Structures are given as C-alpha cells and as structure tokens.
C-alpha cells in the first residue's frame, strides 16, 4: 500500500510538469470548413422521385389527355375508348354500392384519415427541423 502511495505521489508530482500538445495553427479553421460542408450536406433537398421520372409521368398523362381530346373531337362519345371508360365507371359504382358501412366505422375511418394527415404534418415539421 505504501509503495502504491509513493508511486502515486511520484507520478502526481511529475505530471504537474506535463503540458498539452498544440495542433496546427489552422486547426479550428479546418474544422469549421468541414462543418460547413456538413451543413450544406444537410441542406441539400433530395426529392423522392428523380426529375426524369416526374417528367416522364407528366408526359404520359399529357399524352393520354391529348389522345382522349383528339378522339372526342374526331369521333365523339360513341368511340369504344369512351365506352370502355364508361364501363369502368359503372363497374366501380356497382362494386362500392355493395358495401354498407356502419356509422361507427365511418367515423373511425374519418378519424384515422385525420390522424394520418396530422401525423404527416408533424413528421414534415420534424424533418424540416432536421434539414434546417
């Protein structure tokens, strides 16, 4: 035990003369430069879909619209294209009329929808804060 205490005293006494090393002069500047790049990395907005895919989707929708309008102009509603479209409408209205929801169920669905919207807003705010 005495030995241990003596050793402790010796090293304590010795370590008083210990000094810290100093890094290069522009150390802080370099760190700040690195953090600036971290900041800009954080601020970069990355869309979920790439631009080209969005453009392609818009082009396809516009293409169908132009095609539909052209058909309507040239052959009117009697065209098979519009007939099929009408069939889809009739089928879907028949399909959904089979279901009858209770009031409780309807309220539950509406409340769930509202909660999802609220959650989306909260998440949006959270991610915006993280990007800031």
């Amino acid at each position, binding site marked *: 035990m005495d030995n241990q205490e*003596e050793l402790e005293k010796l*090293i304590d006494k010795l370590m008083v003369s*210990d*000094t*810290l*090393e100093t*890094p290069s002069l522009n*150390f802080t500047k370099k760190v700040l430069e690195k953090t600036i790049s*971290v900041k800009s990395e954080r601020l970069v907005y990355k869309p979920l879909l790439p631009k080209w895919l969005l453009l392609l989707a818009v082009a396809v929708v516009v293409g169908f619209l132009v095609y539909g309008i052209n058909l309507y102009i040239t052959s009117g509603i009697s065209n098979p294209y519009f007939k099929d479209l009408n069939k889809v409408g009739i089928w879907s209205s028949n399909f959904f009329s089979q279901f009858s929801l209770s009031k409780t169920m309807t309220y539950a669905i509406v409340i769930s929808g509202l909660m999802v919207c609220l959650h989306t807003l909260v998440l949006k705010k959270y991610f915006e804060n993280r990007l800031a």
Partner: protein
Amino acid sequence: MEQNQYQPNVQLIINGNSQEFSKLVDSHKNLVFTVALRMLKNTEEAEEVAQDTFVKVFKSIKSFKGDSKFSTWIYRIAYNSCLDRLKKIKKAQQIKSFDEMSGVEISDLSTVLDAIEREEKSKVLKQCIGLLSPSDSALLTLFYFEEKNLNELSKILNLTENNVKVKLFRARARLAKILKERLNPETIKNYG
C-alpha cells in the same frame, strides 16, 4: 498543467452559431489533440482524428443529453474515435510487462526527477508517455488534465470507477518503470 473551464452555449451551436462553435473547438482542441497524439503516436493521424472528433461533435450535438459534463462527452468521442482509428490501422502496440518497483527505487527516481529542470522533465515525460500503450497514455493524460475526476474519467472510458483506479495504478507503474529505463544512468548516478 492547463485545465479547461469553458462551458459552451449548446443551443447557440445547434442554431448554427459558428463563432460559438469555434470557441468550443479552441477550448478543447489541445487536450483532444494531445490524447489523439499519445494514442496514435502520429501527428498527421492525430490531427485528422482530432478534427473528425469535432465534426462528430457538431453533427451530434443535438443528441447531447447533458447527463455528464460537455467536455466529458467530447473526450469520450475523441477516445472512441482514436480506438476506431487504431483498429483501422491495426497499430496494436506491444505492451511490455513491467515488474513492480520497490519503495527505494521509487524514492530514488523521485529524487532524480526533483533535480531535473522543469523543461527537461516535461520533455522526458512526453517521451515516456509516448512509450506507453494507447489506453495507458490516454488514461493518464485525461486523468491529470481533467481535474483527476474518476467519475468523469469512467464515463469517458466506459469503465467502472474501480476499474479506472486499477488501470490508473498499472499505468503509473508502467510509466515509472519506463522513466527509470529512459533516464540517463549518469543522471541517476549524479542525482540519485
């Protein structure tokens, strides 16, 4: 021995105040760099790891919970970064086994060290710490520069306080043995 009392305004740093962050870097860079240098034994690598430490601090400052001193948190990041770098470069230092020194030997060494000039003592000490294992040198450096606070040290090293005490004793013994070996036999003869 220099000690750090600066407490940064964390909220200002989170808000992107670079002036506050640079104050934080300036106040802790020397100890972070010293620990890195003593663990990695290479100036370039130590500088890089020290810089990365502050970048990590900047990135994760929001996750600082405040359950320890801010400096403790920084030194913990620095210590872990050094361990990661050591793993990466596989610079496993060979740790010599040292026999225990007798009381007479310690007392002789103490007399010799008393007689040596402060500047020279500091130089010798640095050389000897350089010969210690990365964990021993980090342990001693952090202990003596962090107000000998075992509780904070145990948080930095992720060890129990008792474990830190045992490791400190062993590190001191190794340092004393290296010192004895490194000191010029002439010096010992003259002063001892």
